[in-house]
Every structure is written in C-alpha cells, then in structure tokens.
C-alpha cells in the first residue's frame, strides 16, 4: 500500500507549539466568495469515510488517538460537583490500565483533550485536573443561545478565565449570520477573543441554526478573521449537530484561511458523535481534508460525552476478541 508520506510529531492539548491565529481585518470579499454546493458536499460526505477503512491495530491506535482529542463534556442543568469530579477522574484515566497494557501502550500519555463544563464548575474541574496537563474548557457566553447582552458575555469569559479555564468555547449570535451582518459578528467574536487573553478560544457557530451550508462557510471565515483558535460546529443543543457536511464546509474554510494567512485554525465537531465508528469517520475527514497535522489535540477536538464509553468497548474487543460490556469500564 502506498499513501501519502508520513510526517508526525506528537502534540499535547496544551502544547502551544503553533503560532496562534491573530486574526485579520474583516475582508468581506473572502467571506462573500464562499460557495457551498449542498448536493456535491453531501456526496463527498457520504463517500469520504466509505473510501477509507481502518482495521485491527490501526483501528485501536486511531481510537486511542481519538480519546486524546475528546473534550469530555458535561453541560447539563443538573451538573453538580460530584459528577464533574467523576468526569475529571475519567479524563485523567480514560481507559483501564490493564487494557492499555494489553494494547502495549502503557507508556503513552492517554488522557482526554480537555474537560468541558459550564462556568460554574470551572473551579471544581481545574482543581480536579491539577497537574494532569488537561485543560478545562468553559462554555462562557450565555451558552447555548448566546443571547445575553454582550457585556455580560464578556464578563462571563473574564470570570471563567479568572477561575482557571484555559479554553473558552463561545457561541455566536446566530441572527448576525442569518442577517449577513458580518461586521457585527466579527466585532462580537473579536471582543471575546480579546477578553480570552491567553486562553484559547473556540467559536461555536451553531451550524444547525444557520440555515445553509453557505452561511456556515461564511461564518467560519468571519470567526477565523476575528481571531478564533478553533471553530466549532455546535453547542450540542441544536436539533442538528455535527454532521460531516458541516465538517467539510468548515475544514475547507480552515484550509483556505491557512492558504491566505499562513495560520492554522483548529476544528471541533460537537454533538451527536457517539460511536467509535463516528470518531473514525471524523478522523478520516480531518486527515483527508486537512492532513495529519489536524489529528493532534492542539488542532482537533471532539465535543462528546458518551463517545468515550463506546471507544473503550471497541478497544477491549480488539484486545480480547470478545465483545465488551459497558459495565466493564469505569463510568465518567
């Protein structure tokens, strides 16, 4: 089998080896030139994973990699300290040690990419993850609708950063996109970015509420121009979450933005990614559309809560040859 050349380095979620995207002035010609042919994109989405298959030790390795890319998330109204702590413990040790040993990867630093919580649980999570190298991400701008007044959203970011969040997932005002008020969208995101300071910012476009793929592409451009470190599909609360179609439009925008500016922007699909197979499809999409560099946690994350449980079962199946049970794996 002959394929593309191998060039790899291992990067942790907080290894900021890449220059951050500083953003650029809003350039409407680039925004408005975005085209997205829905039918053609659907066809590509339907075949991108069908064209690739990852089996045996390759699959096990890819699934381990997927774990390191997960923003292990709890964003529920009934979150309390106890389940957030449990989540953080799982983030540190996502896979049973005996299983890792059986896979011959006991030495690998396998932990999730981040833990993602509401602002009110940032402190708890930061404490729980101390020394682990796992950052805490906070959804801090009136999540999920993002319709609280901008000054309050800015304040919320400031508070989260103050509590130790190293990553901030912001949501955008959908109406700016739907009304094509790109300047307003740009200004809002740029203001958030400024407030984030050293914390990395993931901009949630809420793609399921933007109406068209073209809007998704255009909003992606504006978000990157305004200095986003990552662009992210969904809050997980929209009725349509992370689809491969959204993924194609957004990764293609990331590619074009890099061609224009030289800066690499990260990508985070979130919502609806539940199975090991889903995660492989996303990894294939990243590898094919953006290249291997986007298979590391500084440029790619999954927003997911139940994905990890399925991956654990698949890893055990690979290791033992027997289909696994949920209750054999420690819960989050």
């Amino acid at each position, binding site marked *: *089998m*002959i*394929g*593309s*050349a*191998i*060039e*790899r*380095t*291992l*990067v*942790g979620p907080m*290894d900021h080896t890449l220059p951050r995207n500083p953003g650029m002035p809003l350039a409407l010609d680039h925004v408005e030139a975005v*085209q*997205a*042919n*829905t*039918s*053609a*994109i*659907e*066809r*590509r989405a339907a*075949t991108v994973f*069908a*064209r*690739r*298959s*990852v*089996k*045996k*030790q*390759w699959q*096990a*390795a*890819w699934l*381990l*990699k997927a774990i390191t890319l997960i923003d292990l998330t709890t964003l529920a109204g009934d979150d309390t300290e106890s389940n957030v702590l449990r989540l953080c413990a799982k983030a540190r040790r996502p896979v049973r040690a005996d299983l890792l040993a059986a*896979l*011959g*990867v006991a*030495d*690998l*630093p396998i932990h999730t990419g981040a833990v993602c919580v509401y602002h009110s649980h940032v402190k708890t999570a930061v404490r729980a993850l101390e*020394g682990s*190298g796992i950052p805490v991400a906070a959804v801090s701008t009136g999540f999920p609708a993002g319709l609280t007044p901008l000054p309050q959203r800015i304040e919320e970011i400031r508070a989260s950063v103050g509590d130790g969040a190293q990553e901030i997932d912001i949501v955008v005002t959908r109406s700016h996109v739907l009304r094509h008020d790109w300047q307003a969208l740009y200004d809002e995101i740029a203001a958030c970015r400024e407030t984030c300071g050293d914390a990395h910012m993931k901009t949630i476009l809420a793609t399921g509420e933007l109406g*068209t*793929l*073209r809007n998704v592409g255009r909003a992606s451009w504006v978000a990157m121009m305004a200095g986003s470190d990552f662009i992210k599909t969904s809050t997980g609360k929209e009725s349509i979450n992370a689809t491969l179609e959204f993924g*194609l439009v957004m990764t*293609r925008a990331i590619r074009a933005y890099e061609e224009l500016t030289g800066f690499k922007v990260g990508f985070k699909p979130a919502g609806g990614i539940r199975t090991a197979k889903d995660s492989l499809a996303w*990894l294939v999409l990243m*590898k*094919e559309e953006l*290249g*291997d560099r986007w*298979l590391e946690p500084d440029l790619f994350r999954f927003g997911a809560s139940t994905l990890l449980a399925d991956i654990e079962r698949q890893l055990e199946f690979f290791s033992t040859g027997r289909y696994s049970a949920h209750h054999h794996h420690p819960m989050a």
Partner: protein
Amino acid sequence: MSEHRTEALEDEGKKKKKKKDKERRRAEEAAAEAAARPAGAPRTVADVFHTMEYGPAPEEDTVANAWLDAHGRRFDHYIGGAWVPPSDGAYFDTSNPARMSKLAEVAQGSTADVDRAVAAAKAALPGWRALGCHGRARYLYAIARHIQKHHRLFAVVESLDNGKPIRESRDIDVPLVARHFYHHAGWAQIMDEEMRDYVPLGVVGQVIPWNFPLLMLAWKIAPALAMGNTLVLKPAEYTPLTALRFAELCAEIGLPPGVVNIINGDGKTGAALVDHPDVKKIAFTGSTGVGRIIRKATAGTGKKLSLELGGKSPFVVFEDADLDSVVEGVVDAIWFNQGQVCCAGSRILCQESVAPRLLDKLRARMERMRIGEPLDKAIDIGAIVAPVQLEQITKLVQQGQDEGASLWQPSWSCPTEGLFYPPTILSDVSPASTVAQVEIFGPVVTFMTFRTPKEAIALANNTRYGLAASVWSENLNLALDVAPKIKAGTVWVNCTNVFDAAAGFGGYRESGYGREGGKEGLFEYVKPRWIEDAADRPPHAPTKSEVGMSAPSEPSTTPSGLPPIDRTTKLYVGGKQKRPDWGYSIEVPGADGSPLGEVGRGNRKDIRDAVEAAHGARGWAAGTAHLRAQILYYLAENLAERQGELAGRIARMLGDPAAGTREVELSIDRLFTYAAWADKYDGLVHQTPLRSVTIAMNEPIGVMGIVCPNEHPLLAFVSLVGPALATGNAVVVIPSERHPLAATDFYQVMETSDLPPGALNIVTGHRSELVPTLANHDDVDQVWYFGPPEGAREVELASAGNMKRTWCDVGPRRDWTSDRESAGREFLRQATHVKNIWVPYGE
C-alpha cells in the same frame, strides 16, 4: 497572590514543563522511529498512534475463491440453461490485473458455439413471449433480489477480475445492477400498457466491455428481457467472471432455459454473434473502432443496432463554482475506475480566472489519493485491466509531453507489481494536442482554460465524441443555458458520473447511438407492432426504370393553342432556388411516359452546399416550438391554396387523377399532424434516487439527410420532412427519384410560408449520385433512407465514417396513407436525441 506562592507556582511550572518536554522528546523519538520503519513492516498500536497512518484493510476473498474452486476454475458456455463445453475444446485465461495471477480459464466461443447459443435463444423465444408481462416481471424481480442477496460475492469477483477498487464494485456497480433489474422488472410489468404499439425484436446479441462487466451486463440484459426478447451475451475477454456468476444466478431463479445465454471469447466470437442471421439486434458497448466494424458488418442486414462508444467528455468549471466540490467532482470524473470509463470527464475546461486555484487544489487532493490492491477497502485507484491498456496510457501520456504538455503526478510512487498508473494531470494542453482529442482511457485528465461561456461551449463541442459532459456553476441560469448547448447524451450539472436505471444514457456523434436506461432505452429492444402485423407484405417495390430513360413524347399545348411557357425547376438550397452545379438537367416522364418536365441533376457539390446551408439554419432549432408549429400550419395552408395545381401534376405523374387529389389532401393532413406535434413532443423528468431534477430532453439531431421513396411523391416527402422540421432539425432532402416534381412544386409553397433559409433544402437528381455524398458527409448527423435495400446497405456502410445515425426503411412495405405506420411518435423519436440533464438541488 503572595510572592512565595508565585515562586512555588513557577517552580511547579518549570517541573511540569521539564516533564512535558521529556514526554514530548520521548514521543517524538518514538514517532520518528515508527515512521522510519519500512512500509509493510509490522506496526504496533503504539507505532500507529504516532504515525496515524492507514493500514491494510483487505476485503475477504475466500468466498470468491471458493466459488472459483467449486467450478474447478474452469467455465464453459452457458447455453440453453446448461453449461456447455466449447465445441473445439479451447479455453483462455482470465487473470487478476493487480497481482498478474491467473484466476480461471474460460471457454473460447467458436462460430458453432454461437450458433448453438442463438438457436437456444430462438427456441426459448415463443415461451418467453407467451409468458406475458407479469411473468417476465417476476423473473426480473427475482434477478434483482438475487443480486442483492449475493451482492458481496459479485463485488469481490468483479474487483478480482477487473482490478477496480472494492469500494466501487461494492458501493456503485453492484447496487446499480440490482437497481437496473428492479427498474426493468417494472417496465416488464407495464409493457402492454406503456409500449402497446411495440413488440419484441426476437433474439438479441449483446457484446459488452471490460470496464463495468456486471453493470454493462445489467444495462443490456434488463431492458432486453423486460421487452420480451431472448438473448446471447458475450462478456469482454478480460472480465468474464461476474457474467458467469450471473448465468448461475439465472439457473438459481429458474429462468427458462435459453432466455439468457452467455458465451465467452474474443473479437472473433463477437463477430460471429454480430454476423448471425437469426440475431435481430446487436447492442454493443466498447470502443468507437469496434463500433465502426459492427456498423459495417450489420449494414444492409436490417439488424437493429445500438452502440455506446468512446468519449472525451468535457468537465466545464465556471468561476463561480464551489471549487472544493469541483475537486471531488474531478476525482469522481477521471479517477473513478482508474479513468477507464467511457464517459470519464477527461477534459477539464476551467475559466481562466480560477484556473491556478483549481490546479493547486487538485494537486493537493491528488497527494492524498491512495492506489493499490483493489480489494483494499481504503484505496481510491485500483489496477489497470490489462498490460496493453497500461502501455497505451503510458504511450499517450509520453506523446502528450512530447507535444508540450506539462505532466503532474503526486509525489508518492505507484506499486511496482501489478498494473498501476498514478493519477495524472496534463496541463499546457490545447485542443490541437493529441491528448486533448483521443480517448486515453486511464486516470489522466487534460486541463485547458476558457474565457467566456461561449468559448467554453465551443471547446466542449470541439470533439468527435459526444457522450457526456459535466458543468459546474452556482449560477443556475448559466448552467441551464450551457447544458443544452453541449452536444452530449448526458449532462451533469454540479455532479458527474451519476447513473441510474431511470435515466437514459448514450451518445451523440461518434460516441454512438441508442439509449440505455429510462423509457427511452426500451425502444432499443422493440419494433413497431405494425411491422409484425405486416410481416407477409412484400418488401419495397423494386425500382423500375431509370429516371429519364423513357422515350421523348409530344410537346403539349395550351388551351390557347400557344406553346406552354417553359418552366425551369431548380434545386432549393438555403432558401433560394439554385441551378445545379453541373448544369445538367434530367427529364422527368409522366405515368404515360410522356415528359412532364425537367429537374436539375444535382451532384456532390450541391449536396455539400445544401448541408452547409442547413448548418446555417441554426435559428430553426433555437426558435420556439410554437413558431415551428405556426410555420408547419402555414405550409399546410399554402399547400391547400395550390391544391388543384399540385394534384393535377401528381395525377399526371401517377397516371391516376384521384391519386393526385388524395395525395395532396393527405399531405395537408400530415402537415397538420406535425404542426400539432411540434409543441407537444415533450421530454420527461425522470425519477432517479438522487435528489435531482433529471430532465430527459428531446433534442433535434441536427442536420438530417432524408432520402424519399419513389412512391407517394408528395405524401412521403411531407411525412418525412414534417417530423424532422417539427423537432427542429435542418434537412437536406433527396426527393422521389421518379417523381421529383412534387417536391420541387412544394418549394414554391415553402417560399411563401416563412420557413427560414436552410431549414429545408431540396436536391433533385440521381439517387446513386447523391446518396453516397450525403451518407459519407461528416457534418451530417443522421440519414433517413427510404429506398431499395441495396441502397440501405450503402447508407449504413457509409454512415460508419462519422457514426451518424441512420434510419433505413427495410421492413415490410409501408403504407404511407396509414397514420399508424407513417406518422406520429415513431417518426418524432427517430428525429430526436434524448439528452439527460441531471440537476441536483438542495441548499
């Protein structure tokens, strides 16, 4: 925060950083080590965690091999429902092109084997026909179900034998095969209703290519069976295996013996099938070269013929297209099935303003393509089918470079064992380059630029082929303006290589004729019912005297006693009366042998000029159907105006006063018929599974030559010219040789009827002098020939030059006064191409 605390933090930070640095160093070392190991070396989970490479993902081939073994890796012919050894005991090998290893051996069909197979098909015919629509539908449905039940075996065998990626055989070929049989089970069921004026042809001979062995089998067999025919099919020499599995499937479902017969062999076997007198129709898919041979071989035999031949399909990219989607379109266009696709989008025509960007994107995409073992589920490009094909690709690419093309291939190298060729772009190519003109039939695409939509259309049509085209633009106005202007049987808007059983597929120009799929495809396997009903009618009346050979007769006088004023009849070319180039005239005798007048003796130059004039009448096709209807009505009106005069002249021609009146009356009636049809011969919108409006448009064929029969000098002329004009063709007519004056009188009707210049041109003279020029003319798109059989043979032979469509009336004698036999849809269908335009939608 206290200073102490800050220091502690810094300390901790340093420690952490150290630890992390160490971790990273270790990881980087491990990654470097893993990457340095040679490809193919064992990989551990940890290795792959660092490299994130793809591994082998082989599709299981044990079941396929077990199937081959069960047959002892040797296959006979499938004739009359049984496996029959070749009469002369000869077998040939079929091999796996990816591994260059023999898979099995297959019977080599001799003429005796072909005879046997055709006899079996003939014997099965009455029973198959008597079974009726519903019975045949049940069998077709069973075939579809069985294909689905065994789909993986079909896919694996196909990839083993052909070298195509398992993803394609599994996800594209085999599902389309099942879909084709389902769809045609439906046509079988409703044939009596939907095709009530048609009957089956009889025994059909089918010869298919190696690029889509099972899919092409389905495209051939499904409509043939649905329409009540029995058949003998010859798969391609390189890829016989799935057809043999299909033969087995026919036995499994209990298909009556002899309905489907499969014989294998090379070109000689195919030729024996083509030449067999009991075969009523040949359906062929393959190269234009072989198509030409088949056209010549069947000339004059009365065999129906459909040919799906080569292509050099344009892939037109406008500046407002979604370029990332365009890139995937190119992948599907030219790197599908290793580019071994007759309709492969092999000529990218890109608007100059976005050309550099598109090229960059394509190159980046090509770097990520994967080539290799066809059974690997993670490759994009498999093996080239045979060494000779690989040589041909290599040779043509070299020639392209020698002529100045720039070659671009990805940086990775191809497997050295097996037959592989990397994805390739040739830029710096112009229409004058060989590689821009000839079909390469490999994963090689040429890249050219254009400035305006008009230029894009001109470049797209600058080819002898016309199979398919792909048009990329986000502007629907532009896409729907361009699609009808490209001369191709299929136009894909913002997609490419999309197929479905419900949509017809087939070519214009040297890409062949006939359609496969959709209702339009059914007509390839039927004939009008009246032909069967009139089977015992004698064929055409033999041509009697040569025109102008009869004895001179008395000059006639006028009632006043004065001599009549001499009337000069000319040719009618480009809307003008024109003297014949040669300056000779021919005397035309009446029924009693006395001279009735003279007509110009046209020659090849007159035909040339008439064709030129017809090409000048572009507005006729571009105008509205309503306008064409009006003009046809006006012709009828003006003909009625001169009814008495024309009737008298025709009466003298035919020696029957009543016949003259009747001839004119029926002609007026028939002009009304085609005036009526002009705006009613609608296309269809096909129901394909893709979310798409798939428009089957009836398009005029272009410039048509019509050779009229001797009988019914006005009625036959009008019956032939009417449908041709109604559908927007421009016509060059050679009127009745014996009675040309009816047509020349008619041009005076035309002159008062607003018919645009060049739409209808009349060249009188000797058929033997004019027809060859018309049939040989490379810029004539179709010839209708209504004359004696030997002439039909000549027309069909000559048509092989540019593969023009022909319609030669060689069946039982047609009753021109009968609407059933001589008017209506069959004539309109012969005057049009069906173009399928796929317009996917969704926002």
